[in-house]
């Protein structure tokens, strides 16, 4: 039995690699995300899962499928933001949601060893639906849930191509929460959040024997994992208030942590400090209301102010099911002062750089993974849609549950009962 599984696994891998389709996209307006001006009337060749060549009037290989772009926009596959794609089917159905840890007997404990990527299901229809909208990769996030901890756990970037081997190597990230939303985990004071994080760091740096006291916040495994993030790996810290962002910068400097701010409603206020320390911000343009006392300074031009100050920005915030909203989030940043090119970079190259994936992902350059989207119009415009999507050089099946529901209910007065339309 085990033998058969192994064979079929090998076959699957073989199919993915050697029967990879070759595709030549002709005459596109290519937004490489490497330079502000698009390449006009340009061809892109996808071969062996990668971008093989970019140029004008490329020679079509014999086995190539030719796609006539007719001047339409071609972009890198889009970043979906921090989501629970593949970790969540129906938000209110608890047993279909896997991105948060809630161990009731462990109040006060932090579990950095909690790794959401183990729950990733590449066959989730929620992925299909967002992939068909041009989203080719996402950062799986560990969320705070009831009885979770300040350190919520680990996530990583995954490719949305449907493979069981979806994790994008080098993108492992630790998710941490600071501020009012996390005050329930810190004895109701945010001051204690820094106290507890410092304690966790101290425990991670110590040998097990030296820590025989009662109120430890990490398990032995947790110490191992956290100590890795002290040496390498990203700390994605969800924080909004300017004063808290400065505390996070202090923490990052003190322990030499590689920090990424998530949320950052008041980040514009400390843009200079963020630029100086090279800390990037993952933000949602549409979070412009003072939703909490941590967000009284929220504003629509947060992205524009940060980018002008030299802070690297990327977008997030569409959530899991509607992750596709990320284009609208980027487009609204343009409506509120950000230049179009930086906005596109905010959902392509910038998140790839931030997550250590820029060699392979997030731009159109020869040698990179063949993640591309051909658009009906301006990719940041709400009336545009993805016409074709490729992940690792393979065309994405644009048929989704939602498309099938549409096709079932689109015909007026069909001849057969609708349940036979499928």
């Amino acid at each position, binding site marked *: 039995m085990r033998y058969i599984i192994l064979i079929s696994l090998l076959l699957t891998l073989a199919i993915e690699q050697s029967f990879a389709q070759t595709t030549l996209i002709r005459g596109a307006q290519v937004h490489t995300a490497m330079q502000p001006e698009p390449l006009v009337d340009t061809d892109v060749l996808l071969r062996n899962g990668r971008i093989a060549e970019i140029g004008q009037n490329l020679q079509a290989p014999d086995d190539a499928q030719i796609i006539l772009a007719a001047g339409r926009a071609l972009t890198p596959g889009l970043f979906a933001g921090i989501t629970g794609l593949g970790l969540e089917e129906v938000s209110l159905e608890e047993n279909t949601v896997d991105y948060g840890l809630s161990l009731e007997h462990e109040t006060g404990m932090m579990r950095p060893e909690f790794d959401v990527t183990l729950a990733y299901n590449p066959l989730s229809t929620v992925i299909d639906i967002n992939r068909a909208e041009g989203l080719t990769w996402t950062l799986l996030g560990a969320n705070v849930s009831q009885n979770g901890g300040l350190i919520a756990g680990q996530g990583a970037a995954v490719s949305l191509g449907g493979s069981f081997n979806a994790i994008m190597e080098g993108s492992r990230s630790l998710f941490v929460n600071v501020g009012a939303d996390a005050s329930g985990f810190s004895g109701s004071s945010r001051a204690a959040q820094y106290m507890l994080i410092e304690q966790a760091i101290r425990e991670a740096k110590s040998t097990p024997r030296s820590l025989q006291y009662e109120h430890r916040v990490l398990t032995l495994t947790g110490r191992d994992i956290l100590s890795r993030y002290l040496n390498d790996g990203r700390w994605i810290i969800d924080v909004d208030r300017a004063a808290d962002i400065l505390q996070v910068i202090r923490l990052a400097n003190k322990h030499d942590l590689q920090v990424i701010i998530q949320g950052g409603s008041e980040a514009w206020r400390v843009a200079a400090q963020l630029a100086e320390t090279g800390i990037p911000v993952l933000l949602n343009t549409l979070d*412009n209301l003072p939703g909490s006392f941590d967000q*009284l*300074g929220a*504003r629509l031009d947060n992205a524009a102010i940060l980018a002008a100050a030299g802070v690297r920005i990327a977008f997030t915030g569409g959530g899991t099911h509607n992750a596709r909203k990320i284009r609208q989030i980027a487009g609204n940043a343009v409506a509120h002062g950000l230049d179009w090119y930086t906005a596109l970079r905010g959902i392509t190259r910038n998140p790839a750089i931030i997550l250590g994936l820029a060699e392979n992902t997030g731009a159109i350059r020869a040698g990179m993974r063949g993640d591309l989207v051909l658009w009906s119009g301006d990719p940041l*415009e*709400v009336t545009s849609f993805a016409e074709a999507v490729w992940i690792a050089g393979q065309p994405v099946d644009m048929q989704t549950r939602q498309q099938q529901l*549409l096709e079932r209910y689109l015909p007026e007065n069909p001849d057969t009962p609708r349940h036979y339309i499928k």
Partner: protein
Amino acid sequence: MRCLSMFILLIAIAAASLGVTQAQPQEAFASTYTALDSPPIVLRNATILTGTGVRMDNADIAFRNGRITEIGVDLEMSDDVQEIDAEGGWITPGIIDIHSHLGVYPSPGTVSHADGNEITSPATPGVWAEHAVWPQDPGFEAARAGGVTSMLVLPGSANLFGGRGVALKNVPATTYQSMKFPDAPHGLKMACGENPKRVYGSKSIAPMTRMGNLAGYRAQWIKAQAYKDKWDQYHASEEEDAEPPQRDLAMDTLAGVLNGDILIHMHCYRADEMATILDLAKEFNYQVTAFHHAVEAYKIADLLAENGVCAAMWADWWGFKMEAYDGIQENIALVDRPDNGCAIVHSDSAEGIQRLNQEAAKAMARGNRTGMDITPADAIGWITAHPAKAMGIAAQTGSLETGKMADVVLWSGNPFSVYALAEQVFVDGALVYHHTDLEHQARSDFMLGQQPTAGE
């Protein structure tokens, strides 16, 4: 002043004698809204979408004393009219959100401000959302910057009968009465499906199932019919000393629905449940005005159109609960398709209300992707004329027509674009928001002295 109260009293007596109201005096919590003073204005050379399916290019619109006086090309104006060059801009009716919780779930979302849902009983038709509206919610000014001039503020959906909703004009105000849309009918919020059964079922209180939901509605309507009959008999009585029946706030609301004075706004996702509710409405002889959220409305678009029921929907929300699992982005376009179809784009969100034009744009584009031919002139109705109709205020606002309230938005460009901004927003002919003029950007009391959120 005395003269005014006498006048109100006379109206109340007149209304009562006509049988328009049962027990609920019409003047309770009356609107004190008055339009801001404004000179007569003409906006020139814009692309105008009237909200009635018409697009006019290089056209002008004039208003005076709060009302639209003329729409056309090269209008001739007298010297007292303030001219505004709107060339390159687009003009639409003021945007109307038929599903908002601004003021009742305001920003910031503090515990003390969570006033949107009286989750103490599955039937609370006696509560009124307006009694919880905090006029200082900064969400109102953010919505104004998105061109929203009117909205229906509703209670939440935990209850089978959630209470009365209130139509507001989106003007800066210290009291909700001074935002209250004059002469707009009340709405009654009802809810289908998961929310009531989850909220109460989890406490082992009925309803625990959809069966319990239906039994709950029917029990209340039976009581309401008896209540209405008592009042009808009282009003019909010729005895001079007839004793009026005891008033009941919950039954006042339900009887108001049975009399046709209060409009039903029903949170309902699934197609089969909406069909069940239409049968419930037939059983008790009332009209459902609009299903809200209506994620599966596309499956029964014909049935909704036949029954004259509107559906208020999101452009793309789905999957957050089981009853939202079958959401598709073509929902709005498919509901709009039949003759008499009444599609509305709503927000149910302090974020979404700021960009209803973009939500309508997404829905339009998805419809056109299937081969439909929906133009901006059609789709603007989803966020103007259609919600106005379902809120019972279409005679006054929701479209650009002579004599209607001058609730008008001037956009920087085609509003069916992510890049378009509302540049100037007029309510009853008065400029209430100007994109670049901070003097015309009202700030709520709460935001005074806080960090700057624009400019600098």
